[in-house]
């Protein structure tokens, strides 16, 4: 199990770090929010990153990807996470493209994946509903059989990048269980309303009213009615990617706090010289080191391990990143003192993202329970 970066990965890490630092500093999400930017991220930056091969990094070469692994993508995601970049990594790459890769048929892959890799098409996964929290199976949206196709009715919430996605992957209840359908945004009966979240991630409410779909809309043809299995594997992989982002965010918030502890003076000394603060900083450093190991192990497993092993390690990584990020962000605000609670200063964005990312795909407690269940107790 490879837990450190090789030479090629170190180069990737360096170029990703400099690109996000130069073109996508964290303060960008304040401007996007205050100007009510209709897209909420930079299409131009997305295209640039696609041209560098990053968007299609772990898509097969046959679909214009680079054919690398999730562990390679995690390197870019960690750097994106350092600047809380709102580009559609989660919606389009981790959820959308991965769902099609693992469940789509040849026609669906050929239709969407090359265009995603080029930075053109955007996808969104519509799975969350009012009240279903982290229980994937509690789905009210229904797909009723109509001859060869289905009729879709229901409402999805907080669909990441639903406001700009060219197509939506929709989880719906069917006779045999659950299925996943791909629906283009212009399809009659689809209505989309943008939502504003606290953490700079873009989302929308998506409603389906008597949406008539043909048989080619079904994703995962062979496993009809068994979309939860597919999605659970997709979510494990996406969780690892989100963990890399969280690790980046937590590390940046910690680095910024460390700088502050070394420069801010009170009582004629730098505040980092006080044990009341320095020991807490050391504790955060420990938490981050452990979280980094968990993310590296999960990413490596996503490329080389079985889905069963990945399920456990994804839960391990998420539980640790949730705890570490929230803890670092809480302390970052506290240690910055007054400036930490102002909107002018950026540390608050990490605080908000930490809380939002904690809830995403289940918080630490959820993943402790899942770990126990997967371990047989």
């Amino acid at each position, binding site marked *: *199990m*490879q*837990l*450190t970066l090789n030479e090629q990965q170190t180069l990737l890490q360096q170029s990703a770090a400099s690109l996000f630092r130069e073109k996508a500093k964290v303060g960008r999400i304040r401007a996007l929010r205050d100007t009510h930017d209709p897209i909420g991220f930079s299409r131009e930056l997305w295209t640039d990153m696609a041209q560098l091969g990053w968007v299609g990094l772990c898509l097969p070469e046959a679909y214009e990807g680079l054919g690398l692994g999730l562990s390679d993508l995690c390197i870019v995601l960690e750097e994106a996470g350092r600047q809380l970049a709102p580009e559609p990594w989660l919606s389009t790459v981790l959820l959308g493209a991965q769902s099609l890769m693992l469940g789509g048929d040849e026609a669906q892959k050929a239709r969407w994946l090359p265009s995603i890799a080029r930075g053109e098409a955007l996808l969104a996964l519509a799975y969350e509903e009012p009240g279903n929290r982290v229980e994937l199976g509690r789905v009210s949206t229904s797909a009723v059989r109509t001859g060869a196709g289905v009729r879709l009715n229901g409402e999805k919430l907080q669909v990441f990048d639903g406001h700009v996605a060219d197509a939506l992957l929709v989880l719906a209840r069917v006779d045999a269980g659950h299925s996943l359908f791909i629906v283009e945004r212009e399809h009659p009966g689809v209505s989309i309303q943008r939502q504003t979240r606290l953490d700079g991630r873009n989302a929308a409410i998506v409603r389906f009213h008597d949406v008539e779909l043909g048989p080619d809309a079904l994703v995962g043809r062979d496993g009809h009615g068994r979309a939860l299995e597919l999605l659970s594997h997709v979510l494990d992989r996406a969780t690892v990617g989100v963990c890399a982002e969280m690790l980046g965010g937590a590390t940046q918030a910690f680095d910024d706090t*460390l700088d502050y*502890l*070394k420069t801010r003076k009170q009582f004629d*000394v*730098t505040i*980092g*010289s006080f*044990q009341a*603060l*320095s*020991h807490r*900083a*050391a*504790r955060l*450093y*420990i938490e981050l*080191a*452990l*979280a*980094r*190991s*968990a993310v*590296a*192990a999960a990413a490596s497993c996503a490329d080389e391990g079985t889905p069963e092993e990945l399920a456990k390690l994804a839960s*391990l990584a998420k*539980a*640790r990143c949730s705890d570490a990020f929230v803890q670092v962000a809480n302390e970052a605000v506290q240690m910055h003192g007054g400036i930490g609670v102002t909107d002018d200063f950026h540390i608050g964005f990490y605080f908000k993202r930490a809380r939002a990312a904690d809830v995403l795909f289940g918080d630490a*407690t959820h993943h*402790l*329970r899942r*770990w*126990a*269940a997967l*371990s*047989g*107790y």
Partner: protein
Amino acid sequence: MSELESFQREIRDFVEREAPEALRGTRQGRFDGHWGGRKAQPSRDVQHWFEVALERGLTAPTWPRAYGGAGLSAEQARIFDRELARLKLPPPLVGVGLTMIGPTLLDYGTEAQRAEHLPRIVRGEVRWCQGYSEPSAGSDLAALRTRAVREGEHYVVNGQKVWTSFADKSDWIFALVRTDSKVKKQLGITFLLIDMATAGVSTRPIELISGASPFCETFFEDVRVPVGNVVGEVNAGWTVAKALLGYERSMIGEAMSGDIADAERELVARARVVCESSGGPLPDDAVRLAIARVAMQERCFAFTIERLRQSAIAGKPPGSESSILKVVASELKQARWEQAVKVAGPDALGWEGPGFDARDLHATREWLRSRANTIEGGTSEVQLNIIAKHVLGLGA
């Protein structure tokens, strides 16, 4: 086949062929194995395993062949470790001679010191202990007062050490002594090797709250030590001492990972008995979460050790992250036994004798013993100071 693969095949053949059946599957913690020394009483199997390993230098796998080691690279040594772990075999030789004073002499000793001491460690002839702490010098180690005064070709040592692990079973002690009391306290310390058979050395065990102890007090009364036993320069012992503490911390951290590997399985098994549960989710959600938390911490710790090893093998400078190992390992061990005692409830209140399960009695003693883990070898607070100052650059 690459060189490493053929090495792996060779070492696997050796272990499969030579390791005594009775030792396989027996390794539980870091105290299992041959400790060496004149007072050692190893079982026949432990002795046999030691001897076959010795023939190949594998009692000190990474030490140079010139001193009786096997001269293995870090990668090769890891393969050997893995083969041992695979069969749950104790290493052929354990102890601070191997993990602490040996590496120190390799880095700071004279050729004469290496030639005298290293082969005797490799051959299990000498067991070492560490004389650092004193009654008035704990976390503030440099405040030590044991004095060494030069008289001709000897130093005459007077004073007392405390918390000397296994001093009563050891043959030699490496000690920090004060050779100058007029300068800043760190600058008047010398690192000295002392034969414990010398007249004037005596030891006395200390009983801990767990009822047992590896610890002793060690007394020096006009002990004459040849000047050739100084490691490094006179009055420059603090540098040597700090380097050795680095080996000690990584040793404690890594060694503990073996102690806690089975924690999850054992805790679940005990909880099932207490909750009268035969399978499926444990009915007590709080217990279930607590066990999962310990298990996750254990996995994160094991992955961290593996990650640091990989970066060391890749030739990256020794990571500052290794400074976290001791504090994490010791707290993890406490968390594990804390949980064992919680799960057992009133059954964990036994000290000895009838009416208590042997496993619960064991857990209770381990729980009591584990309180020392965050104190010995540098308290957690001292570890945090080191991380804050030397890794994070936070200081006055």
